[in-house]
């Protein structure tokens, strides 16, 4: 308590330094006058009396300095003086100052950017998704083929259905396929990125639309039977001006009117690391969104990326050993979503989308130079 009170009083003393000076002068003067008068009474000459009084007092200017130090927070005052001295020196050498400031700016910026990438890509690859530390990517490989990472393939829809039925180690199993459309609203048309996803997508990720609903199980099946779309918060805000009556409205996507059934919560960007998805359509619409070939009944057509969320307590290595054998010719790989070789380009996409900065190796090395400078 006492320490806090002392600190507060000293802090207050910072703002009353003028009053302090005049009070201190008056007090010290009063003291010296009394001492001189006393010395005169003892029979000293006026000169001696003054000198003796000063000697006794112990150096008026030292005492004033000690008094000022006790009155406020000297380190703050010293800091302020240093700051002023520093800025004077910077002004005197503008060239090297600008260089130093530039280095610091770029260096700090680059370091911050690197840490936000690490945060975004490695630690929290899927904003808004529940329990993402247990999320893993699933891919297939052909048995007997040497296992370089690039050899893995996507899943086919029948694979997904078998997997979901047979594997008990996962809380959730979803699929996701990136797609894009030209979105024309009013007189503005933009290329917009979205995903074709399994109907359990939002439920399994623990993402609740803030308006409307997610997909229903029936919307997985029926060739092009469910032209419905969930849009991102960003799209809702920017392209539809946050219209509260958006649900039920029809929007043309790839030449077919789709009913907007839901708006995803703010900060949810889907499950493609590094890209912000703007809309999601159910798997039944595959033919419309992935090149015009119907692939939902073709086991030989790998076109989707699988994600699983391990049940609590299940380690990643366990499902690797105990995945269900889908087909004699296949193995299944489970791996952390960001370690996948196929996702290197998505990492790059992340770099671009968060900082708008080029990420070529040469640029990176220049950035690193600036970072070590700072």
């Amino acid at each position, binding site marked *: 308590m*006492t320490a806090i*009170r*002392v600190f507060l*009083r*000293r802090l207050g003393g910072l703002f009353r330094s003028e009053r302090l000076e005049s*009070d*201190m002068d*008056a*007090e*010290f003067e*009063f*003291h010296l*006058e*009394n*001492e001189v008068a006393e010395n005169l009474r003892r029979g000293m000459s006026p000169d001696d009396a003054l000198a003796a009084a000063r000697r*006794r*007092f*112990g*150096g*008026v200017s*030292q*005492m004033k300095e*000690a*008094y000022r*130090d*006790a*009155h406020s927070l000297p380190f703050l005052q010293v800091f302020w003086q240093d700051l002023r001295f520093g800025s004077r020196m910077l002004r005197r050498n503008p060239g090297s100052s600008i260089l130093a400031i530039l280095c610091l700016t770029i260096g700090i910026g680059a370091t911050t950017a690197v840490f936000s990438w690490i945060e975004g890509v490695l630690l929290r690859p899927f904003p808004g998704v529940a329990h993402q530390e247990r999320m893993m990517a699933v891919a297939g490989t052909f048995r007997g083929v040497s296992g370089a990472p690039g050899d893995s393939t996507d899943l086919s829809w029948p694979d997904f259905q078998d997997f979901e039925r047979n594997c008990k180690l996962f809380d959730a199993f979803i699929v996701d396929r990136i797609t894009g459309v030209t979105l024309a609203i009013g007189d503005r048309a933009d290329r917009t990125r979205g995903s074709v996803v399994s109907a359990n997508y939002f439920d399994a990720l623990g993402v609740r639309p803030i308006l409307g609903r997610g997909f229903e199980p029936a919307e997985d099946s029926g060739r092009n039977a469910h032209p419905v779309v969930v849009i991102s918060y960003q799209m809702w805000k920017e392209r539809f001006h946050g219209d509260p009556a958006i649900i039920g409205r029809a929007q043309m996507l790839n030449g077919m009117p789709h009913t907007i059934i839901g708006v995803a919560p703010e900060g949810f960007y889907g499950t493609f690391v590094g890209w912000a998805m703007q809309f999601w359509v159910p798997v039944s619409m595959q033919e419309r969104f992935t090149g015009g070939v119907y692939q939902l009944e073709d086991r030989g057509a790998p076109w989707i990326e699988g994600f699983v969320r391990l049940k609590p307590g299940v380690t990643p290595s366990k499902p690797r050993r105990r995945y269900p054998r889908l087909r004699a010719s296949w193995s299944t790989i489970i791996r952390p979503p960001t370690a996948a070789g196929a996702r290197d380009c998505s990492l790059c996409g992340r770099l671009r989308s968060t900082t708008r900065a080029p990420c070529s190796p040469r640029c990176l090395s220049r950035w690193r130079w600036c970072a070590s400078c700072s």
Partner: protein
Amino acid sequence: MDHEKADVLHGSLGLMLLRTLDTLGPQHGWGIARRIEQISGDALALNQGTLYPSLLRLEQMGWVASKWGTSDNNRRAKFYSITRAGKKQLAAEAENWERISDILGRFLKPSRLPKPSKESL
């Protein structure tokens, strides 16, 4: 510096100031300085000026209060007085000081030390 005179031990000046104010009542700095010199019989090597930062610290602690007033010779002067918290602090510190000086006294007067026996070593 006169080597015959004792330097003021760290922390003891505050105790002297509190005690002086407790005895004299409200007093200005010069009066306090005179009083301390009187009591110590001029045996202390104390710059009078050092009283003021010490008084300021005591004031910041809340043990001393200060007020501008008029002195006997009709001059404007700052008067210091001890607060209730200061009296408490004085009692506690005085007790502490006595205990310490008692312990030190035992060390410094060997005749009063109990003779070491072989068993106790």
